[in-house]
């Protein structure tokens, strides 16, 4: 979400300076009233809750009863005393790193493959896009049944004589199960996105390169990839943000377990806030998560100068 806002913000601010001079005050006021319904909604449902959660993060509110101001003790507790914070942070970053790389590689691979097809492109696009409009919770429940001890996955493994522990009860494999499910659900969106971008690459560039003797490999790395890099960048930023917030799959499949093997920031917020009713502390974690996502997104924007090519 933040990234979209940032992107539009950047684009918007350039335009606004040009527009601003042309709009006189009256038009500005009229525009303000036309924008008011949206603005009220945003203030009420976005700005106020955000400010409220900042305030909450400095209290010990337990949902029932009145909150008491506790200063920065929630933050101190989070970074120094909570035995779960560092494992949770590590899990979140581990998930994000592995999922992000796999998602981008697989979806780009699929997009390139689909765009190379002579026929059935549309059909494949629909097939890969299907998981995107399937509710995440439903997806996770089905996969949980597949991976459950003694479930379908164990049955398949046994019938091909592969000896392995059950996915969801093993500390290492549980996170991999979460990643597999997330990939199944998340790859389709990026595939369609990248595929559309690849289709936009002008044929003339590719033909010129072919005439110059560039092989398919070179054409991909030197022409197609640089030309779709803005889309690739968008896909990467969005995927990184959603993966830092991962929750549904974990809530349904593992509840953060076994042990703390799959406990992530998103799940920790839910657990502290809605299971243990420590709303103040949950808000603290939420703000740490927000800071992390901001920082990571900022780094990505900074890095984009190195690898993203805009036509203009």
């Amino acid at each position, binding site marked *: 979400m933040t990234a979209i806002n940032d992107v539009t913000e950047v684009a918007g601010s350039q335009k606004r300076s040009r527009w601003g001079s042309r709009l006189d005050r009256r038009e500005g006021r009229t525009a303000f009233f036309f924008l008011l319904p949206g603005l009220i909604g945003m203030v009420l449902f976005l700005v106020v809750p955000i400010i409220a959660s900042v305030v909450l993060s400095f209290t010990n509110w337990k*949902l*029932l*009863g009145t909150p008491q101001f506790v200063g920065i003790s929630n933050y101190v507790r989070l970074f120094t005393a909570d*035995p*779960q914070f560092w494992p949770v942070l590590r899990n979140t970053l581990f998930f994000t790193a592995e999922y992000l790389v796999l998602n981008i590689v697989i979806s780009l691979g699929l997009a390139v493959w689909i765009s190379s097809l002579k026929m059935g492109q549309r059909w494949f696009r629909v097939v890969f896009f299907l998981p995107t409009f399937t509710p995440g919770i439903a997806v996770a429940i089905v996969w*949980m049944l597949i*991976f*459950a*001890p*003694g479930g379908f996955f164990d049955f398949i493994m046994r019938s091909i004589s592969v000896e392995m*522990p*059950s996915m*969801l*009860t*093993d*500390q290492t494999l*549980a996170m991999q199960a979460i990643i597999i499910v997330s990939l199944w659900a998340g790859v389709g969106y990026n595939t369609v996105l990248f595929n559309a971008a690849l289709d936009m690459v002008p044929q003339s560039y590719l033909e010129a390169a072919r005439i110059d003797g560039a092989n398919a490999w070179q054409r991909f790395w030197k022409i197609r990839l640089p030309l779709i890099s803005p889309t690739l960048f968008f896909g990467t930023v969005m995927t990184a943000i959603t993966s830092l917030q991962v929750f549904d799959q974990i809530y*349904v*499949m*593992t*509840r*953060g*377990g*076994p*042990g*703390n093997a799959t*406990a992530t920031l998103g799940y920790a917020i839910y*657990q502290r806030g*809605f*299971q*243990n*009713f420590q709303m103040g502390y949950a808000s603290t974690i939420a703000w740490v998560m927000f800071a992390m996502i901001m920082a990571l997104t900022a780094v990505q924007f900074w890095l984009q100068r190195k690898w993203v090519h805009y036509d203009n």
Partner: protein
Amino acid sequence: MKLTTVLAAAFLASSAFIATAQAQEQVNLTWQMWGDEKDAALWKSLADLVTEEYPNITVTAQISGWTDYWTRLPVLASSGQIGDLVAMQSMRMPSFYSILEPLDAHFESDGFDTSVFESSIIAGLGHDGTQYALPYDVGPWMVYYNRDRFAEAGVAEPALDWTFDDFKAAAQKLTEGENYGYAVQAFDFVAGPVALGAEYFNDSNQFDVTNAGYAAAVGKFVDLVAVDKTSPVFASGAGSITGSGRFAAGGAAMYIDGPWVLQQTKDSVDFNIGVAPLPRGEGESRFITAGSGWGISATSQHKEEAYKALQILTGPKAAEILASAGRALPGRLAEQKFWYDVAAKDVAGTHEVLDYMFAHSTPFRLNEYWNEFENLITQYMPLALNGDSTTDAVLGDIQNQLPF
């Protein structure tokens, strides 16, 4: 003529006034409840009982799913939108008693005596000696077993005072590869150790799950899975439900649950089932019970009417309806027979087993962090069960994360 007109007008006006006054007395109570869609008709029939008795009171049930209920409840309470009647489970009472109206003053005003209810659940729905809710159901955790599998394996059916060693021997005899003798669930690590005589609290009602007695008792149940392989490991995501599924499918010969699932279990299996008390340790048998009931919201505008409705909802007629439908083993002692006649009809030993268990019930010790403890058990216990960690290390991890 003029006087008549005035009188007529006055009469009309006063009758209109009386009508409005009567209309104002009409009270609609909201009733916060959990449950399935299929139970909706049952709750409706209970609500209708209230209106039958008090025509000016109507009760409307607001039903949400079990998990959502506990997320919604504090939110509704803190935003002042909570209903007049609130469903409460005994194990959550320490966290939620503050949103409920103490009932003792109401009992005094109408001389109500709670001894018509099973005593352990009356204790369970109170807090610090104050009563906050009246029960509709009650029950101890007990062992459900597959009688057909017991007969095939030549294992004698459990005695009322069977020991953990008997339980273990049965589980071992009943296990054949993937066909397990027992299916462990998260709550077994609470009810099981208590039955063996262990305590998870210290004397000041704080968690002390690393004490030797509790660790040893948990270790016994862990060994059934990790060492003897008589039970599959449960996954943390579904720790509290996998056992029932395996049992119903015939893949596990025993599992532990309460009488509240008896009707449902009986309907979903195609073999004969029996129930037995939890196995005891060296000492006397002792069992914890749980149950649910309804209380009055502390912020209700209609507490008097809500109390009247509560008396009907937890009254004999309502208990009979719920018991006859198999929905609940009533907290009311006199109406328990309806449940035994219907839900428990084809289940061997139910009456004797429950009588024995109620006679040996022990207070279920709880505090406001109970829910966290249960979640931590579900999340961490699989590590001990699959051999990645030891019982002591897992209990240490759980203890570390519990507030004290």
